[in-house]
């Protein structure tokens, strides 16, 4: 009888694998962008109203290489997909993979706390002999061993967005987190006239982005705006619930908070709710990074004041481009910086969102051949 249970599962799995294999064509039809006939400029839905796809898309500073003769298999390992930041990136990987005829497998660890799971996923990619691995590390020091093992097994590793401490990666592709911290500090310093009190929601402990952004924010404040005082700072997982809880407690602890720094907009959304509930909107300004739909809503409502836009889709595209370039034995730059831009309510509507977000309604095909 237990056999029956397991067999049923396996049959289910069989069906799954079957559909998985059959599903190697492009994901949702709404997104049927470039057909395998690559160069053919099919209109992308996000840009349907304007130009054909290959006309000056965000991210063309690092251009798309010619489509390789063979189909490469690329494993992409992400911390999680519950943040639109990574969904945007996932879209970049999948869409670029299709444009370059590569088979992209997305794996997500389920959160920054699941380092052991991410390590297992990379090991599984090594075992299944993918051609290249794109890694968004859940931990800098924690991923060194497994990255070194992948490279030793002859599988090149491209490091995107969140950095591993391993020295063996082929290329690093990221926003400059130093600049993200500084941009928020400068914005706050100018809006608050260099005077006031600030709290920091730094984000996931032990990640390069939370560390570098937070530190550069503080450094810039100390250098340029010495009268802006940091009252407190907290790390947490990147979820709105954590941001809400921490911000409520900050508001209880300090009667007057003029500015809230956020390492990522997932905590900013929580912080915005806390500020709204306390009735301090307008008097407490919130700055953050990224631009998911709730961030946009809170900006329109004037609760979140400014955000530094990362080109998440571009990070994904460049990751695949770098992998293909390396596999095709073309030189690959060691570090690629994706562009950054700070926006406010007044400027947000003039942004080209194709580099920032996945098309509305797109969902990432986790674990499938892309």
């Amino acid at each position: 009888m237990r056999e029956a249970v397991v067999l049923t599962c396996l049959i289910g799995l069989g069906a799954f694998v079957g559909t998985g294999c059959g599903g190697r064509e492009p994901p949702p039809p709404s997104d049927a962008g470039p057909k395998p006939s690559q160069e053919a400029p099919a209109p992308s839905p996000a840009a349907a109203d304007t130009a054909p796809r290959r006309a000056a898309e965000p991210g063309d500073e690092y251009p798309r290489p010619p489509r390789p003769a063979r189909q490469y298999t690329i494993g992409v390992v992400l911390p999680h997909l519950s943040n639109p930041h990574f969904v945007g990136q996932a879209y970049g990987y999948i869409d670029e993979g299709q444009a370059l005829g590569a088979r992209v497998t997305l794996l997500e660890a389920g959160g920054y706390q699941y380092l052991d799971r991410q390590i297992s996923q990379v090991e599984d990619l090594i075992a299944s002999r993918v051609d290249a691995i794109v890694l968004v590390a859940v931990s800098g020091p924690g991923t060194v061993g497994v990255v070194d093992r992948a490279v030793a097994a002859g599988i090149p590793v491209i490091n995107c967005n969140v950095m591993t401490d391993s020295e063996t990666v082929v290329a690093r592709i990221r926003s400059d987190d130093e600049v993200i911290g500084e941009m928020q500090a400068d914005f706050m310093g100018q809006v608050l006239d260099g005077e006031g009190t600030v709290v920091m929601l730094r984000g996931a402990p032990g990640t390069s982005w939370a560390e570098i952004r937070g530190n550069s924010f503080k450094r810039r404040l100390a250098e340029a705006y010495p009268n802006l005082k940091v009252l407190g700072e907290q790390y947490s997982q990147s979820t709105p619930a954590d941001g809400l809880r921490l911000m409520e407690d900050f508001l209880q602890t300090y009667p007057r908070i003029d500015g809230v720094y956020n390492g990522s907009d997932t905590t900013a959304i929580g912080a915005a709710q806390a500020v709204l509930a306390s009735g301090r909107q307008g008097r407490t300004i919130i700055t953050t990074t990224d631009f998911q739909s709730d961030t946009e809503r809170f900006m329109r409502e004037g609760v979140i004041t400014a955000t530094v836009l990362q080109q998440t889709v571009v990070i994904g595209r460049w990751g695949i481009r770098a992998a293909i370039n390396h596999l095709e034995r073309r030189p690959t730059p060691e570090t690629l910086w994706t562009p950054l831009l700070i926006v406010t309510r007044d400027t947000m509507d003039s942004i080209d969102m194709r580099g920032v977000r996945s098309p509305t309604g797109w969902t990432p095909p986790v674990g499938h051949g892309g």
Partner: protein
Amino acid sequence: MNAMSSKPNGAPPGAAFIGSHPPNGLWSRIGMPAVLAVLLLAFGWANPNFWSATNAANVSRQISALALISIGQTFAILSAGIDLSVGSLLALVSVVCAQQMRDYGVAAGILAGVATGGAAGLVNGVLITRANVPAFIVTLGMLVAARGLALTLSGGLPVAGLPRAFLVVGAGSVGPLPVPAIIAGGAFLVAHLALSRTQFGRYVYAMGSNEEAAILSGINVVKHKILVYVVSGLCAGVAGVVLTSRVVSGQPTLGETQELYSIAAVVIGGAKISGGVGSMGRTFMGVLVLGILGNGLNLIRVSSYVQNIVIGAIIVGAVFVDMARERRR
């Protein structure tokens, strides 16, 4: 393990008549191996790389930490208890081990890590037996507190800068055998012998089958229960050290939900959650099923979301089948 003073030596009390043996019958002997064989064949068929030596080494590395904490969990569940703290203990052990290692060297780090696990287990055991708080509550408290302690000690940040030599524990291998697999395999062997060949093992079954009867037959239940949780803590200690080496750093966020997977491994193996029935061999099978499922599903590119559904169904399914068979008898 000389425990009894009130009893004459010879046959250990209780063990002979209390249900100390797993249910017999064809199924219990070949059931789990058959399931494993089906899994192995199915995954191998779906992705030929599944069968490679690299992947075998992979799986054994990936499951070694779960295997170790499942050993401790088997003792706890067999004695009609439970140890929810093991997941967080991995994190606490990892942080303590890494900090000591950074300052005082590899040996000191390993020792401190394992000792931390044992000490936490001792606290669990003493609270359960002396303060009479249920094991579920005590270890739940430890689950939360150990995580907090790990975060406090580390300031929430990973502890990096471990000596290169330490990496052998997690990444090294002796011939074709990965070191973590040797450690976990050895621990299974020792635990199996302890459970099946020693007085302590028989007492664990006795306590789990009928605690009252165990007390009446003169077993020092307090002492042996404490020992059960110390063993579980020590297992978490060793597992934490192995994981620390695998992730090359002390990680305060390590091991989340691992306590639940260790319970799953024990019950998939066919142990009764109410105690008294189960064995190390069966837990070993449970660990293999979980490890091979996770790895195999990754290799055949099943979404990690769907994986959770499959594993959840298998946990409930395994227990359902066991219960159904029990009713038939």
